[in-house]
């Protein structure tokens, strides 16, 4: 048991714990400090992504309502149903993709919060793993976008009529 020294310099219990665990290798003050300063920014981006996803879902809900109305011939003369259908699909997919990215970023921020309270190496690994998961997700999305773009360019080059119209 540690002897209490009334003359010891002041120290902050950043872990917020009653009992302090043994400090473990990678969980240094500097590492925790960097993650603590990252948390606010990732939380901001995560929340903004979720807000954008929510707005996209609202647009999808309105478009779906209009699509349904167009199908029931109520507005059939005025609304192009195919455009509405594609709007629902594309905006819906974009909303889901934004929502997943936002949830992953918020998960990373929450994992940092747990690390700040516990100071455990397992929580550091959890935070870093969530961050890795976010980058993997972004990377896979980037690959999909690049492939789709390449296909669109090839399709445009392969059909000269697409250019003749203009």
């Amino acid at each position: 048991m540690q002897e209490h020294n009334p003359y010891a310099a002041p120290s902050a219990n950043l872990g917020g714990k009653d009992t302090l665990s043994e400090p473990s290798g990678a969980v240094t003050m500097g590492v925790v400090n960097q993650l603590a300063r990252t948390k606010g920014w990732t939380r901001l981006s995560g929340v903004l992504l979720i807000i954008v996803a929510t707005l996209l879902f609202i647009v999808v809900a309105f478009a779906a309502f209009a699509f349904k109305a167009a199908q029931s011939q109520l507005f059939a003369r005025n609304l192009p149903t195919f455009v509405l259908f594609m709007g629902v699909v594309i905006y819906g997919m974009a909303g889901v993709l934004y929502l997943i990215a936002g949830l992953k970023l918020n998960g990373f921020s929450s994992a940092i919060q747990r690390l700040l309270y516990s100071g455990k190496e397992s929580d550091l690994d959890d935070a870093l793993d969530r961050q890795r998961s976010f980058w993997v997700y972004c990377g896979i999305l980037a690959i999909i976008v690049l492939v789709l773009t390449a296909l669109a360019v090839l399709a445009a080059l392969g059909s000269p009529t697409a250019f003749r119209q203009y």
Partner: protein
Amino acid sequence: MQNPYHPPAAAGYSGGAGNEGAISQRTASIMARTKGWVRFIGIAFIIFGVLMLIPAIFGFASGIPYAMGGGLAYLIMALLSCIIPGIKLNAYANRIGDVLRYGRASDLESALNEHRGFWKFVGILQLIGLGFMLFGFIVSLASR
């Protein structure tokens, strides 16, 4: 025996900023699996930024004031939204390389510092963007 004159230290964590503690195998493995994706996204950002510079160059070369203005806008967009974030992500990937090479906690701290820099930059850009959106919204309301 405890030194009553030692400097203040936060409880619960080992050492300070310059601590040379070693990272665990699991931490190293996670960082190794992060590095490739961060590098890929960083390079993709820079390539996209360079592609955005092409219309900027044409705009400047045209000599037409409107086109030059558009070129300047493209230049700023390319730098802020693609090239600088791409450089920051590549710096993060480089620091992860140091973490994997030396396995020191201080290298992990440097890597996380680069990571923090990226998110801070992105966050500030988002706040500026939100500010512009709010400004546009107020102006559109006021002009009715």
